[in-house]
């Protein structure tokens, strides 16, 4: 078989503990977003739209939903004869085995997978971010500059820079220094966790790193510093556009609300760059006579009899008469009774909210209320806020 120019490796094993009970039973990349999607749809669709047809998805934490969701990759057109999507969980070998101990370790343990494609470059992605990006442009940049590694960076506000891994570059965009969460940042170019490596270089460093007992086997902490130490050619590729780490309940809520802005920075309705996802196959949404819908994204299979204001409603949600959903994210198949009030909340899949329940705190700036026990029933006298 012909070798592949570039193979993507998507790190999808993270728990995402800061998403609290949302990730109690599913890995972070499987968390719902935007009325229809799971977070992992974004990097997978980016691959498809960037003509990258070979993707390894590294799973570890609660992989059931992810495995089931990814399947053979048909929703993203990644069901291919040569290449396509492969789910790569940790495994045992004759010389032992065990869990992936870090991001670099996860790739190292799948050398065999990468070798069978004999790629020239490897694209490392994470399943934690919401963004649309043409990886093929980054690959062109990487090839033209002759870099050993290219790291995608994003300009962040200076006051936030100390929360990110910061790249200090020279005038030719060559990375001269990497600061992980610096107290006094020298640059505001943050790493997006998107890397392209020359495979021969990466392989060498992965093998070296694996032998180092003091290493934490992490790209940001070990591999990148080692490359810099050896004066390898590391380039920064500046990405412009919407990018969001939805690592916390607040940032997940915010990213959803961003979609409701007048001209959202992240345009989901772009026929040239579709975000693909598994289709729930439900009838069109029904907006009843008694309904009032103002500033909302609503998906198929919904039956809306109440009021929806500035909210994201996933598929299969039923909202009864005289109930109000405001500034909230309602995940799939939630059934909401009558006279229910929901403010500034995220309600997990399959929750049943009985008549008269009151959820959330309407005060602007207050903490987001999370109802995240999938399939739970909230009784009619239920009152909850964060």
């Amino acid at each position, binding site marked *: 078989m012909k070798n592949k120019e570039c193979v993507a490796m998507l790190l999808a094993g993270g728990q995402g503990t800061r998403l609290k009970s949302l990730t109690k039973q599913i890995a972070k990349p499987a968390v719902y977003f935007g009325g229809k999607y799971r977070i992992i749809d974004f990097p997978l669709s980016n691959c498809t739209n960037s003509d990258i047809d070979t993707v390894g998805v590294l799973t570890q934490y609660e992989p059931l939903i992810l495995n089931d969701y990814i399947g053979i990759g048909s929703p993203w057109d990644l069901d291919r004869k040569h290449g396509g999507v492969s789910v790569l969980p940790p495994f045992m070998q004759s010389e032992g085995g065990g869990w992936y101990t870090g991001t670099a370790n996860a790739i190292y343990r799948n050398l065999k997978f990468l070798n069978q494609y004999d790629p020239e470059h490897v694209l490392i992605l994470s399943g934690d971010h919401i963004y649309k990006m043409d990886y093929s442009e980054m690959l062109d940049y990487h090839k033209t500059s002759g870099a050993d590694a290219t790291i995608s960076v994003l300009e962040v506000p200076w006051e936030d820079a100390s929360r990110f891994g910061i790249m200090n570059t020279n005038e030719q965009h060559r990375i001269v220094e990497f600061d992980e969460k610096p107290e006094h940042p020298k640059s505001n170019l943050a790493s997006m966790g998107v890397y392209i490596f020359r495979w021969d270089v990466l392989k060498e460093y992965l093998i070296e790193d694996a032998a180092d007992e003091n290493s934490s086997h992490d790209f940001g902490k070990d591999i990148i510093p080692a490359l810099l130490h050896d004066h390898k050619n590391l380039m920064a590729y500046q990405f412009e556009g919407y990018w969001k780490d939805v690592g916390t309940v607040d940032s997940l809520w915010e990213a959803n609300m961003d979609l409701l802005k007048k001209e959202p920075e992240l345009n*989901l309705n772009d026929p040239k760059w579709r975000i693909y996802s598994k289709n729930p196959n439900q009838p069109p949404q029904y907006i009843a006579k008694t*309904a009032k819908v103002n500033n909302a994204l609503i998906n198929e299979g919904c039956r809306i009899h109440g009021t929806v204001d500035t909210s994201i409603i996933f598929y299969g949600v039923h909202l009864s008469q005289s109930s109000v959903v405001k500034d909230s994210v309602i995940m799939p198949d939630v059934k909401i009774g009558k006279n229910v009030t929901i403010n500034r909340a995220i309600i997990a899949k399959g929750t049943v909210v009985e008549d008269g329940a009151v959820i959330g705190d309407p005060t602007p700036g207050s903490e987001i209320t999370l109802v995240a026990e999938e399939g739970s029933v909230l009784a009619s006298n239920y009152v909850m806020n964060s």
Partner: protein
Amino acid sequence: MDRIAGIINLDHEQDLLDELTYFRCGAAVPFGGRYRMIDFTVSNMTNSRVDSVAVFARRKYRSLMDHLEQGKAWDLDRKRGGLFILPPDWNDPTDISKGDLQHFHNNIDFINRTLADYILVSGSQNICNINFQDVLSEHKKVNADVTVVYARVDELYPEHQQAHKLEIDQNSRVTGIHNDHSSINVYMDMYLISKDLMHDLIEQCIAHGGEHFFLDGIKSRLPDLHVHAYEYEGTHALVNSVESYYRNSTKLLEAEQHDGLFSDDAPIFTKVKNEPPSNYLPSSQVTNTLVANGCVIEGQVEDSILFRGVKVGEGAVIKNSIIMQRCEIEPNAVLENVILDKDCKISEGRTLIGAPEKPFVVPKRKSM
């Protein structure tokens, strides 16, 4: 379990759909916000474990083929069985068949090769949610030769005049098939027959110069064959004209009709378009409307159906209308009792008003 194979026979379908079938056959007409007519028949088949389906197409089948693809949306992209779209490409020099028997004769391999013992033949114009396994159970219970499906309609509408009606005795045996306008036993253009009997009847029909398998092979043999009537009691709509299309589409806004057709147990499948959720902007006002995905709504919409990817500009008003895929309604346009076919564009401030009993139909890709 007995296997059933399906044949969707589009040869004798009435076409009074005017502008809606200029470029496509009736089976490919968009219906219900995101479906095409044929989706109901194909989904009913796959939900009834019919895993081998042939489509007898004759005219205007380009968009039908585009829509059905290899049957993936219905899980019919199979190694065993699957979907077979069979347009007329007939090269048998000894062929003397006529009418829809040309289809049966030239596609006899489909019938011969199928692993099924029974064949279910259906048209595409009877919208319903039926389980053909139930039809088969009854067929076997009464030991019928042929079982035909019918509905007792509460009220006769003009579209029912085009349909055949059944005369039935107390044992639900069919004693007559006719066009009597006063009968409420509307034949739903679906019948179940064993593969062997179908094979025999096809040969006999062709030998006697028949042109219509159902009429010449079954109706004309009512005294000899045990033809049983299976009553379908669920939600039903017969769509064969613009008027019936409009009335039955609007009826989907009623919960009873909607829930009767769309159930979680027997979902209606259709080709996936990967549209995002629909976007209701702050200026939008939507009531009593079915909205498919990918719409962007800034105007007012009432008692209507919006298909996928429709854009409604600010200040536009849409009432009692059916707006098909990717139409663009610019700001301040007014539409009432209108059917817009796909890809139409209504420019700013335009007004189009049809009559409630006779909607104004705009053909595909028209700009106004």
